[in-house]
């Protein structure tokens, strides 16, 4: 069954025809041209597809696109309209990512963390990104970058 949904995507009003069974991840990538949310498992285990839905981090592979009708979605592309955020700059300064495939998810999870808890402890940082698997970094550089941003 098809349905037309409207949403605010990275600040823009967008409208798109979707199948009711299509995930938000599939619609973002295949119908709205937003490629930063990645498909690493399509079953909510890896966190690479993380986006912000009304400011809260969600796994876009576990959400049907029809569920976001009338709501606000932010992906990595939407963070830097006015240049890199302080958090993004901290990741750049630290050269925190290696392959970069987990980066969109990690950055959005950390963005949410610093919004609700601007000065987290290291354990709070670890908990915030515990749902984002990274196979390259050993997480050390990611945690360092997030803590550095929180000290800004």
């Amino acid at each position, binding site marked *: 069954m098809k349905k037309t949904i409207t949403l605010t995507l990275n600040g823009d009003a967008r409208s798109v025809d979707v199948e009711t069974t299509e995930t938000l991840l599939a619609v973002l990538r295949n119908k709205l041209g937003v490629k930063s949310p990645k498909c690493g498992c399509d079953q909510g285990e890896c966190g690479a597809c993380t986006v912000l839905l009304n400011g809260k981090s969600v796994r876009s592979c576990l959400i049907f696109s029809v569920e976001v009708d009338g709501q606000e979605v932010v992906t990595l592309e939407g963070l830097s309209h006015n240049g890199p955020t302080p958090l993004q700059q901290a990741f750049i300064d630290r050269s925190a990512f290696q*392959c970069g495939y987990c980066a969109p998810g990690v950055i959005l999870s950390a963005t949410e963390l610093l919004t609700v808890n601007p000065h987290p402890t290291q354990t709070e940082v670890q908990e915030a990104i515990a749902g984002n*698997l990274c196979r390259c970094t050993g997480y*050390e550089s990611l945690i360092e970058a997030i803590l550095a941003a929180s000290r800004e």
Partner: protein
Amino acid sequence: MEAMEELKFVGKPTPRIDQQEKVLGAARYVDDLDFGPNLLHAQVVESSLAHARIKKIDTSEAEKLPGVVKVVTGKDFPYHFGLYMQDRHIFAQDKVRFAGEQVAAVIARDLATAKRAAKRVKIIYEPLPAILDPREAVKKDATLIHPELGAYSHVPWFFPKPGSNIAHWRKVRKGDTIQGFAEADLIFADTYRVPRYAHCSIELHGAIGLCDHSGRITVWAASQSPHTQRHIFAQALAPLGFTHQNLRVITPYVGGGFGGKAGVTMEILAAALPTLVKGYPIKIHWTREQEFYNTYQRPALVGTLKMGVKKDGTITAFDYLIHWDAGAYVEYGANVVNASGLSATGPYRIPNVRIDALCVYTNLPPGGPYRGFGYPELLFGVESHTTRMAQQLGMDVVAFKRKNAIREGDKLPYGAPMTPNGLTECIDRVVKTIEWGKKEEHSDPNKAIGKGFAIFWKAPAMPPNAASSAFLKFNEDASVNLLISAVEIGQGVLTAMAQIAAEILTVPPEKIRVESPDTDRNPYEWQTVASHVAWGTGNAVKRAAIDAREQIFEAVHHACFLEKDALYLEDEAVKCRTQPGFALLLKEIVINGIMVEDGTYRGGPIMGRGTFMPRFTSAMGDPDTGQGGHPCVHYTVGAAALTLEVDKQTGRMKVLKAVEAIDAGKAINPQIVKDQICGGLLQGLGTVLYEDMRFDESGKLLNPNFTDYKLPTAMDIPDEVIPIIVETPQADGPFGARGIAEHPTIPAAPMVANAVCDAVGVRVKSMPVTAEKVGLALAAGQTEVE
């Protein structure tokens, strides 16, 4: 060697040149590329059995489904392929040899239709006995998995045993082990087991293939090996008239490799299928589940190790019998067995050595390269065993290992001399940092603290003529495009190569774009594997930059009548030692040349080229002894230790502190080297503490997902990781560098096993060393776990 001069860019923690793209959402990976409304999707039909004869394939019901373009089976592509041994087919032919193997594929307008149709393909099998254990597979009456073994073409350094399941038998014989054991005061033997593991790069395997109407194939692939893929595609599709000339492979950013995207696995489908549907791009993308069972897996092994030592701690003899469960196809995995088998002693000076590394076919998914290429598996046994022998002698473990540690010039197991290395410096710095010998008590009486130590080595495993090359071109603003075909899989190769070019040309790394591979445009690279690109591609890039510099000096010489020998580059300008006031900015000359008195010009666009191929290596050792060849270009060595907390009731473990030292020769970018150590160490800790592949009795993988196959998360990291860089220059490396990217994984498993034993007295002889194994042993009062 220029490593001795003052360096401006090499050796500095230059920011990664890929970081902005990755942090701002600009980086594009293969799944992010768009192919327009004509894109078709392919879904494979997989074998449900681990070993069976295919009696019949009925595709008629699938073909009836609207939206299906074509159903393809083995009849369409009866061709072999493979990297080192051509033992695979594009689709299973008369037999399937592992559960999940591709038997057919459906090409359809959309993925949902392809998936529905794939379920309608009916395959009738006649089941055959499935062999899952390599020690069963080598028994005389075992069912043959490849009766055709004798007919397969393979590289000259493999020695298959047709009529058996032994695809390759690497033998090493050095000295006289009978004499060596006779000289020993203590002889000790035991068996160690290592299961299979999955790479788990977060990016899945994916490829898009297009055979255009002129008959030219382009494949966009998440690949560590664009040129090698093109070569394997050309070999496999030669019967259809394809050669390298009409094949092209393009690789954008790759979301992690770890060996899993080396060689060719599912990408063969993206090259083959489009030949049947010309003009339409076809996308084939694995699910996470397929990623686990139909790409390479890290092979499993059972190894029986026997060592002899004198009372003073001198190792006199070493005998290692290794049965590798290499899986259903060993076209790449046999070289894991071969390369690691040649160095299975670990980094020790041992006069009498016998190694039998058997590459055994089983009915499990194909084994292949995984970060460490066999060394982590073999050294789990060696570094557990040497620790136990030191303890049996009453010697300090570090003292024992240091005493026997291999030094430059010592004879390697296959007879060649050991290359320059800082192994003892690595040992000494690790021991000091971990405070070896200082016993730590836990404040909680239910918990114990132990320390574990391990040393390691690894050589790049490459054909003797594995080559790298580089093109370098200037732009009007003196920025540079550097074209290589080494792939950025996260290891930082783009940044390291930019630093090397920057050092020669005095153009800062941020002005150098390093371009990802396109086999039509970028020059040849063998593969991004073996931790060899820092060394091999680095040498090619350095030569390309020197070539460009020579062209610049030549132009200045002709235009300005200055001696070439007096010219040098500084701060993006040509300067002259004999004329202190002379300076020509690169941006004024590297495209437009230099105007001379009569208004004509000299010089022109500057384009450098560089190639590198090792000229001293040979794989032609004696088949029965391994002696006589020179199969390894050099070794990278290291040492590591950790402090481990163990809960005496539950077995639950926590790494409190980990120290790892690696001899990088020269760290081109010390921050990237340290980040490789931190990341690689956690990947290694994952293999020993959390992960392993579980198969049922029929050979079906039980845990192909991240819920049942546990990767370390941000909550599972050591409290403290201290990476240490040692620099013993590699004479033939760029600025003295050698590779380090695989090595950090190697010591993780044995040092955890050693630390558990130190903490609670339980010796676990099989990986993984889980809380469950340790806790159950403690509850039962066992001191050894098989």
